[in-house]
């Protein structure tokens, strides 16, 4: 896990958008406010947070669909925003995406083979001849657990889980190093969701691909992610190894998020424990609170929280893997519930 050059390293990313003026006359929506990320090869980074926290904007920047206002991104040691022409095209091949909705993300008038092979129309050198393309489509279908005979069927002939497999095969067609999965299983039924999660894990093992895994479902993230970053109003308020973040959260928001999520214990009972019920809802990102952004919903907020933005603070137990939370009063650096 500790490796010299990470596959993806993002530092101090800021991105704001101009929107219609709100009542207070503000029209700048800061979607990302100084975001740092690190992702190693073959690793999965879980990105969690509620709607509007900036997860998808971050994904768009990582995919270079949006240019950040500030900050740097390094992918395999290079800044992709500095690339042009052929180099840029070659870079784009290396980062692909799996979408949330397997119904909206597949063109209903294309067959599975057309859909999977479409990226090769842009990246022509990869699989140059029709014969090779046909063979490669068969391989990819097999890789994601579909049959060769499925190649000439249309999306409406597949179930939701099978469609998501087509989406995954299409992402794999360009042999990427990184796949951004934006809520890849949230549109699927539970029994099918497990199949797709297993497929993603299996592909990672076989191909060594890395994932940025965006999800609101904490139980899914806990299962798939090596590291987790928790976002709130454009900031990463906590990050660390999955076990550390889930078992010993530093930030009150992380603790609240974990405790709000309904859980199921192995004996079939609800794993509620002591639920922290947050009052209120996410403040508008147009007008974020001063100081700590979470203070308006935090039960332990003090005067200092309104005045001063908290810097990341780590657990002082000398472990190598950083586990940091942006809170002036991190949940007692002792285990929860002790």
């Amino acid at each position, binding site marked *: 896990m500790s490796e010299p050059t990470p596959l993806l390293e993002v530092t101090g990313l800021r991105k704001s958008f101009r929107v219609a003026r709100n009542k207070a006359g503000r029209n700048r929506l800061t979607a990302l406010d100084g975001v740092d990320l690190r992702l190693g090869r073959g690793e999965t980074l879980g990105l969690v947070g*509620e*709607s509007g926290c900036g997860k998808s904007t971050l994904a768009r920047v990582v995919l270079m669909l949006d240019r950040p206002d500030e900050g740097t991104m390094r992918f395999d040691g290079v800044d992709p925003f500095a690339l042009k022409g052929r180099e840029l095209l070659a870079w784009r091949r290396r980062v692909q995406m799996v979408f949330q909705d397997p119904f909206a993300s597949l063109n209903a008038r294309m067959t599975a083979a057309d859909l999977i092979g479409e990226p090769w129309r842009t990246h022509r050198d990869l699989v140059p001849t029709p014969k090779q393309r046909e063979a490669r489509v068969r391989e990819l279908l097999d890789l994601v657990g579909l049959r060769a005979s499925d190649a000439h069927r249309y999306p409406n002939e597949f*179930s*939701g*889980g*099978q469609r998501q497999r087509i989406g995954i095969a299409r992402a794999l067609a360009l042999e990427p190093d990184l796949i951004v999965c934006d809520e890849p299983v949230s549109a699927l*039924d*539970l*029994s*099918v*969701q*497990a*199949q797709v*999660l*297993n497929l993603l*894990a*299996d592909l990672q093992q076989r191909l060594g691909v890395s994932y940025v895994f965006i999800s*609101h479902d*904490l*139980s*899914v993230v*806990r*299962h*798939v992610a090596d590291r987790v970053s928790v976002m709130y109003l454009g900031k990463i308020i906590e990050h660390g190894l*999955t076990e550390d973040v889930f078992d010993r959260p530093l930030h009150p928001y992380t603790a*609240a*998020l974990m405790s*709000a*999520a*309904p*859980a*199921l*214990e*192995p*004996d*079939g*009972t*609800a*794993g*509620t424990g002591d*639920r922290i*019920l*947050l*009052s209120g*809802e*996410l403040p508008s990102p147009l007008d974020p609170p001063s100081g700590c952004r979470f203070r308006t919903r935090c039960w332990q907020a003090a005067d200092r929280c309104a005045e001063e933005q908290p810097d990341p603070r780590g657990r002082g137990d000398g472990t190598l893997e950083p586990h940091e939370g942006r809170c002036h009063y991190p949940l007692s650096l002792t285990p929860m519930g002790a």
Partner: protein
Amino acid sequence: MNPLPGTATAEPEARTGEPALAVEHLSVDLHTASGTVRAVDDVSFSVHKGRTLALLGESGCGKSMTALSIVGLLEPVAEVVGGSVKAGGTDVLTLGRRARRRLAGPVLSIVFQDALAALNPVQPVGRQLGEPFRIHHGLSRREAKEKAIELMRIVGIPEPRARARSYPHQFSGGMRQRLLIAMAVALAPDVLLADEPTTALDVTVQAQIMQLLRDLRAERDMAVVLITHDLAVVAEHADDVVIMYAGNVVETGPVREVFADPRHPYTRGLLDSVPERAEKGKPLPAVGGSPPELSNVPPGCVFQARCPLARERCADERPRLTATGPARAAACHFSEELASV
């Protein structure tokens, strides 16, 4: 052989007296362009006041269709072809449209998943929330508005008097869901159906809404039917569960017992698919395949194609819902093989 669920000894607590809602042998057909299919097949369950029953299943299993048949809001392509729905002392399926509408609100009401679609976009919410009082109690506009403001306060909307003049799009998703719940409980119904009431919401808001439903249930002694696909929500909020698959009930009973010791392979498969119960780094024990199309439900057991226990008998004979305990039942020929040792 075990006795049928109907003859099984009743659980002592909370099961005395008439249930607030009793659904018996309900069947619903869907008339589609490619023929008629059975969307709900011989479904029975009952709920008492102050208790929550969950209808659990994946998309297309018939849980929403069951709920819509109960409240009489089925689309014209769907038709109730058998069974009864007893609430407020009558079989509502035998009532005419006008009589049925009189029950909507004081006896039966429903909260939908998509609050934005369920609210009228061109009317202030105070007016909409007052409507039940105007229609059922004949209150004046002013009186109804006061009632609406009171309801908004009860469901936790800040500054209700000022917000009563706002339109639905001016509220957040969580607040809209509160408005919908307010409208549903306005006339103190005996039975509240909630169709995926929190699916579109973030987890911290979801927790608030479920708590609100819980408080209202206790305060007003309502029977709640919670329609959901989320096992963890069922474990936390429901007393009893009805698990549906391809239009059929495959298992039913007290949540605690069913989840701790499932007696239908589908229930077992669902529970095993929950990521947090699985060991990290190991594949999840997934149920292979996907549910059958309603036009293609096999003649024997509905789950046979995906079932690890399936054998010849399952292809020929549809298993009946058979008691597996004092208050529970499963529709599987081999349910005793799943009994925990």
